[in-house]
């Protein structure tokens, strides 16, 4: 990347509109406000009469974002979110970015569910740092990104409408698997997940799947012989029997046209009823598998 020089400032306004932003139509000003943190967008009300109500139609919501070290708790954001949603009166949203931290109060989950319900027809992007996860009340949700989250209490992620799902750098439960039920998924990215890897339900529309597995994943075999190992991670008969799976179960990606698997461990070992064995022995190298007829794949990452 080329070195960045000192930040260039835009030239001072000369001629033309005299740098007057008010030459722009309301629809564009509303789009601009959609990029601001929502409290700042609301505060533009005081600029001049024309700005009084523009924020209510801002095309994006951005609440609690930009505080990477200490995200706000649900309780701290409650008043802000409730005011925003009530006063916006359901005007259309192109994107909605919510970042919140701990669930501290008893009512927190129901409040967050209420926010999702109220934004349901408009919501198509949520980035969150939290731990809930039933999105069946958001029939328009298409994009979901979960980053740096503690998902250890989550059992299931449900969304009938979701098309793009990224779960990155998060902690899953150590004793049960998260089931992901999202039949409309087109792209799926699971990266740097700790503990048990999620189990995927059928995703018939999947085009692209990307998995990055590192040492934090507990789905790995430490046995010396991968092919005949019967340790907990490898025992496939057990997985088949109870259907819950104790290996990394990726039956959901069977339709993927494009599967990328990157392992940071030395060896990725794949076997299933159809693809028996594939070795890949290269540090942080990628394995591309295209258009194979996957049925069930177990991925066991061993060191």
């Amino acid at each position, binding site marked *: 990347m080329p070195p960045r020089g000192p930040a260039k400032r835009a030239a001072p306004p000369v001629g033309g509109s*005299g740098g007057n932003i008010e030459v722009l139509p309301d629809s564009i000003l509303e789009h*601009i406000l959609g990029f601001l943190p929502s*409290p700042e967008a*609301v505060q533009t009300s005081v600029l001049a009469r024309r700005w009084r109500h523009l924020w209510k139609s801002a095309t994006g919501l951005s609440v609690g974002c930009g505080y990477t070290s200490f995200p706000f708790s649900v309780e701290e954001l409650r008043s802000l979110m409730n005011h925003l949603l009530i006063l916006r009166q359901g005007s259309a949203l192109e994107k909605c970015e919510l970042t919140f931290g701990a669930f501290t109060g008893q009512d927190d989950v129901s409040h967050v569910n209420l926010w999702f319900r109220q934004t349901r027809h408009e919501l198509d992007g949520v980035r969150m740092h939290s731990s809930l996860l039933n999105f069946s009340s958001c029939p328009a949700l298409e994009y979901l990104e979960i980053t740096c989250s503690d998902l250890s209490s989550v059992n299931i992620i449900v969304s009938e409408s979701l098309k793009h799902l990224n779960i990155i750098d998060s902690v899953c439960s150590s004793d049960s698997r998260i089931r992901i039920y999202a039949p409309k998924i087109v792209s799926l990215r699971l990266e740097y997940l700790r503990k048990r890897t999620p189990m995927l339900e059928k995703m018939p529309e999947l085009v692209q799947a990307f998995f990055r597995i590192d040492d934090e994943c507990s789905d790995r075999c430490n046995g010396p012989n991968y092919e005949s190992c019967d340790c907990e991670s490898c025992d496939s008969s057990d997985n088949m029997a109870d259907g819950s799976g104790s290996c990394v179960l990726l039956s959901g990606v069977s339709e993927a046209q494009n599967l990328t698997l990157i392992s940071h461990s030395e060896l990725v070992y794949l076997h299933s009823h159809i693809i028996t064995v594939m070795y890949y022995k290269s540090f942080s190298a990628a394995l591309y598998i295209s258009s194979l007829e996957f049925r069930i794949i177990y991925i066991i990452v061993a060191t």
Partner: protein
Amino acid sequence: MEVDKGKGEAEETRKVAEADRDTVTLKSSDGKLFEVSKEAAARLSTVLAGMIAGGSIDDNGTDLKQIGSEALENVVDYCNKHANSIPSAALISSSISFNTAPFKEPEEWERKFVDRLSHDALFDLVEAANFLGMERLLDVTCHKISEMMKGKSPDQIREVFNIKNDYTKEELEEIRQELAWAFYDD
């Protein structure tokens, strides 16, 4: 019959030649001509894509009466730069190319592209992007303007963007009270 056939063939050849051209010529409101990659124009602008598909592109310069030459030059510049910055297929595994978020942060070259513009040029470009249905350019320019507002007091924003405060003191006080929930930083 022979003649007709010949004519038909000639027309066919001309049409093929037109379709084969990989640039289109656009004409600004003040009559200046600009060439832009057809592929990039069709990919980045829903309006130009429609015109190209519908055959309403004029070889001698398609009239864009709503767009001045400075803004059109920036639009064309943006399209051509974009055409040169398509990530290679090899990047498929990198985290960047997989981002399907509703809005991707501007890339380095896009930042530089909007940073050098004066306020007026930026506002003209926003309107041109809006008119041409260039979603990405509209996002990048609006994002730039939002960055110029971010973290500033109302007075500072008014100064930067030349906004005249037409409220009375009493009205302002009333609004502040009404929206106290959003002024929690104060």
